[in-house]
């Protein structure tokens, strides 16, 4: 099922933000017409409220008012774009009032909650308002969702975006900057801080934020703990001989937690063709076979395997290739989105709604224009059989001054609306 209109609502910030962008790329790649609500553009204004030095009740009122404006902006976009699906990433700024309005108007909504449900418990207040609620964990969460009134829960693990997470050729300068025998890219959660103290004797680089205040690890922290862009993450993954992937935990007493969900880094490293040592997770075996990933279940095993794979780099290459093949086959955002769409189709009666659409190349179409229009359709990344309505929207999505042909298409569409004519 393609050619859907999907509005992706990004969060203000956070881990689900880059995933929302990968989802957007994947949906477009699969032929859907995608519009994005760019919540991050609103965040600095929201954040500035915290500098007011006002009473807390007044601050809360202002924050809620601001969030209401943002939610109303999403609704306005829905009204104009008329999507088949509003796909919200975790922490998307849609308040209850807006979600109720969408439900009342028959607009189908889905939430991809790419967080640990045990830590981010706010989902309980919002899950019932979505038509579909996708999660990255299994088991109890499904019972809990059912209990709060959400029957359409879907297990939808994370993934990689192959046109972004891929093997790259690095310059010698980049290799020197981003490369090391061992590295870790991620935030300084308590279990990682303790665990990595045991690795300081290696050529070990730590990338990412929230590592402050640890004198043992301090010499290993790169770029003074600055946030690393997604582009640089790919370079680090490619430049490192052994990428450590230790899932986060707020517990410091158990370093390898043997938790359930598989983090995005697992899929991204694999898609890059990079070698990783990842801690065992209960949902990992259904994503990768044993010979597709190198895993560890304790610090002793991690230290042992670092030593082993450092001495056997050819084995790393084989495992990395197999993990990459597996990701490309089963764990891309395109595949995840297809799963989500199929699930929505199964669970939501009459979805997607039939919409009136007309063909671009009707009998009245001037033949001498066909080549130019086909070229435009190609440039816009639209399917060859795109409807006239979707072509119009894709033209409208373009930035800056439009061409004579773009404007003629928009003008024709408006003229047809004005005079109630469809060709």
């Amino acid at each position, binding site marked *: 099922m393609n050619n859907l209109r999907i509005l992706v609502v990004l969060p203000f910030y956070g881990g689900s933000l880059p995933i929302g962008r990968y989802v957007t790329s994947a949906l477009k790649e699969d032929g859907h017409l995608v519009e994005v609500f760019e919540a991050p553009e609103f965040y600095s204004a929201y954040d500035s409220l915290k500098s007011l030095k006002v009473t807390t009740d007044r601050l809360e009122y202002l924050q809620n008012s601001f969030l209401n404006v943002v939610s109303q902006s999403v609704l306005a976009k829905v009204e104009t774009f008329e999507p088949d699906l509003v796909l919200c990433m975790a922490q998307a700024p849609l308040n209850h009032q807006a979600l109720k309005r969408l439900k009342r108007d028959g607009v189908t909504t889905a939430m991809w909650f790419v967080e640990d449900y045990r830590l981010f418990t706010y989902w309980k207040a919002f899950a019932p308002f979505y038509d579909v609620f996708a999660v990255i964990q299994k088991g109890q969460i499904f019972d809990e969702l059912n209990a709060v009134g959400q029957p359409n829960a879907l297990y939808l693990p994370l993934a990689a975006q192959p046109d972004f997470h891929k093997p790259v050729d690095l310059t010698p300068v980049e290799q020197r900057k981003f490369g090391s025998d061992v590295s870790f890219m991620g935030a300084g959660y308590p279990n990682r801080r303790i665990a990595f103290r045991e690795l300081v004797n290696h050529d070990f680089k730590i990338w990412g934020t929230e590592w402050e205040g640890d004198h043992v690890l301090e010499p290993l922290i790169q770029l003074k703990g600055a946030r690393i862009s997604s582009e640089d993450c790919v370079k680090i993954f490619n430049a490192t001989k052994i990428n450590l992937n230790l899932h986060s935990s707020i517990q410091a007493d158990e370093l390898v937690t043997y938790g359930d969900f598989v983090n995005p880094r697992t899929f991204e490293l694999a898609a890059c063709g990079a070698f990783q040592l990842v801690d065992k997770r209960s949902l990992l075996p259904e994503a990768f076979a044993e010979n597709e990933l190198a895993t560890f279940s304790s610090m002793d095993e991690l230290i042992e395997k670092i030593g082993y794979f450092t001495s056997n780099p050819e084995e790393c290459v084989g495992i990395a290739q197999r993990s990459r093949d597996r990701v490309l086959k089963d764990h891309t955002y395109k595949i995840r989105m297809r799963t989500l769409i199929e699930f929505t189709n199964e669970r939501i009666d009459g979805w997607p709604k039939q919409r009136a659409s007309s063909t671009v190349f*009707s*009998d*009245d*179409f*001037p033949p*001498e*224009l066909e080549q130019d229009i086909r070229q435009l359709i190609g440039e816009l990344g639209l399917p060859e059989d795109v409807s006239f309505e979707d072509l119009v929207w894709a033209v*409208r*999505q*373009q*930035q*800056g*001054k*439009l*061409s*004579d*042909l*773009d*404007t*003629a*298409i*928009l*003008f*024709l*569409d*408006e*003229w047809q*609306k*004005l*005079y109630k*004519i469809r*060709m």
Partner: protein
Amino acid sequence: MKNYLIIQLARFGDLIQTKRLLATLCARDDATVHLCVDKSLQQLARLVYPDVVIHPVTAHGTGLSNSEAMRSMLVDNRKAFDKLKSIDFETIYNLNFSGLNFRLAALFDPETVEGYGWNNGQEMIGLWPSMAMRWSSFRRIAINLVDFWAGYCPDMISPESVNPEAKAKGSGIGVVLAGRESRRSLPADILAKATATLGSSSKTDRIVLLGGKSEAAAGQAVIKELPKNLQEKTDNLAGKTDWTQLVEIVDSLDMLLTPDTGTMHLAAHLGTPVKAFFLSSAWCFETGPYGKGHTVYQAVTDCLPCLETKPCDYDTKCLGGFADPLFQRFLVTGKADHAPQGLIGFNSAFDRLGQIYSPFAGTDNDTDQRTKFREFIRQFHADDGGEISDLERLFAERIYRERDWMTKSQPVGTFG
């Protein structure tokens, strides 16, 4: 050389009412003025604005088959758009609140577009038209559309220099049968009486009935109602004139009797005296004849001006003044004592902002408020201070909004 573009995609009357803006731009040093109009009006546009470069596009929906429309939109319009895009315009004045105008603006840098713009897929409305939408709630004190459009340019030419002062041209009386909205026009019998009265009193040799093809039958009905001697002098030219002929005829007349129509504005443009009948949604302070020497008979029931789109719940009571037998005598004498109830007789005149109408019969209860409002608006453009009225605060609160104050300060700014 500086190129300016005006996009005027509305109808006949609107094209003529763009004149003060066009003339203002033409008066600028080293200016070349371009005008984008619907294809059906290109001949007229060339006749009335010979110094302006005309860019016709297909914007109106009449008389096109599907395939013709598709070809016009995608082939012909595309060529026209390509031509427009190739010109380096200093400013584009996009005048109509229409989806077509918003989209046409997509060709240009949004910073250069005033009026109705397009910014990365978002429709944008400029400050000046936004202000006009705000004052549309008090239409009785509105400003003339000619002056409103000229208001895009603070250097607008004086109102007196827009159209020639109206003078009789010697070739009889023209009668416009109907405007686009029939409720705004006089029924055939009333129109015939007015025509007969003025025809007889002026001892005219010739009466021409003007209008489109659809008004030919109305023309016959008017002729039937005329006295025999006038019937012989009357030609029903409804549907028989092209633009050139219409301009020639209107330019030859002693006077034109008309409701609020494009032909009325054409007469004003040519300096032919107009006697205009305004009722229903037609309000002379919005769209009355521009220039000196015109007369307006304005209905003033308490429900006016109404909305064309809304059905009348009052049995078109605004026709009452025109149907009153006293109206015929009033047409001839122009004496205040002879004015029927529900009508005001106005002479066209000017103030510093532009076109006004001074009552010569009947009472205009809105004069004081209107004068103050017009001064308020004039001060928006002028930097010479001016009168401060007791309504200053009321107007300021109604016309200026928070976002004007907080986000943009220049009249050229746009909001979306």
